[in-house]
């Protein structure tokens, strides 16, 4: 009995297997912007047309989304600020730097800033669980900007681990 027991122990010790097959689950879901790993959640603002709850974040500062009192865009040759339009939060597992790139006719006229006035275009660091409150500054003082021009049509958010 003693000899057999030590024999069994030796077999376990070598771990010499010829084949192992294992099936493992892989589950991946698509979440709305408010609950995804990169959270983009619009505030309760007129200019936020999709707050990311059930969809993807969308802002509209144009005649398609005129204010009830008739405003259909920013003024020419002016600087217009919109406070707290949306929140960006890191709902992943690593610290990330979030940047934004804008595309359109005059991307430089549009700046996103966090609560400290840091430009999102330069990258904002977010620890795990951290969020940034994003404001918008639109500067139309550049002479190249004409009335009725669309300044930007889309932006891309990049979140990359530090």
């Amino acid at each position, binding site marked *: *009995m003693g000899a*057999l*027991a030590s024999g*069994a*122990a030796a077999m*376990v010790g*070598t*771990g*010499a*297997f*010829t*084949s*192992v*097959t*294992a*099936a*493992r*689950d*892989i*589950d*991946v*879901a*698509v*979440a*709305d*912007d408010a*609950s*995804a*790993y*990169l*959270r*983009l959640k619009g505030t309760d603002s007129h200019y936020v047309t999709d707050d990311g709850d*059930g*969809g*993807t974040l969308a802002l509209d500062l144009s005649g398609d989304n005129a204010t009830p009192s008739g405003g259909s865009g920013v003024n020419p040759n002016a600087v217009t600020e919109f406070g707290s339009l949306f929140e960006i939060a890191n*709902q*992943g*597992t*690593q610290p990330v730097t979030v940047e934004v790139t804008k595309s359109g006719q005059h991307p430089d006229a549009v700046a996103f800033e966090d609560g400290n006035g840091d430009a999102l275009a330069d990258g904002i660091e977010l620890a*795990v*669980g951290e969020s940034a409150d994003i404001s918008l500054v639109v500067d139309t003082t550049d002479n190249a900007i004409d009335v009725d021009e669309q300044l930007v049509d889309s932006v891309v958010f990049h979140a990359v*681990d530090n």
Partner: protein
Amino acid sequence: MERRTFVLSAGAIVGGGGLALGTGAFDSVEAERDVSITVADDADGYLSIRPHDGPNGAYATMDDGELAVELTDDNGAVAGDGVNANALTGVANLFTIQNQGTNEVELAVSPLTFLDVSGSIFPPSIDGVLGVLLVPQSGSWSVDPDRGVLSITDLAPGEETDFSLAAVAFPESAIDEVEIDDELLITAEA
């Protein structure tokens, strides 16, 4: 005196038993022997399948000792409930497979790509597409065209390879519309 008599008769019985064994004439033998086989959890198995020890290991769960890749709201270790739509998500260093046996093995993982499409192709009306790709981070890997598996040859004892994941989901209506709920088959052969 009565005690001594008892001992002698016991000896006679033992002697008779020895004689029967010598002839080999027995009808049956029942003998219990120890054979020790332990079921380890995935991390401690001969083929270790475990979450990566970095921060993105949190996207994998260990349930009843089995690893699962879990990028859903069922994963309480991560605040987010899934990948963003209209976005490309990369998760580096998600899980690790290590040869904890004594033989060099060939590791095969299948499938490599997972796809869920909702909608119709003709006429084209796509409600949602979710594609997920597994990428080994280390080791010399190749795709075996005969078996349609990702193959990592010559994984030496103690050697490991990390896996990363890339996911792309579009358009916006893909939210809660498409989901990967599948199995990953991992085979190691000496």
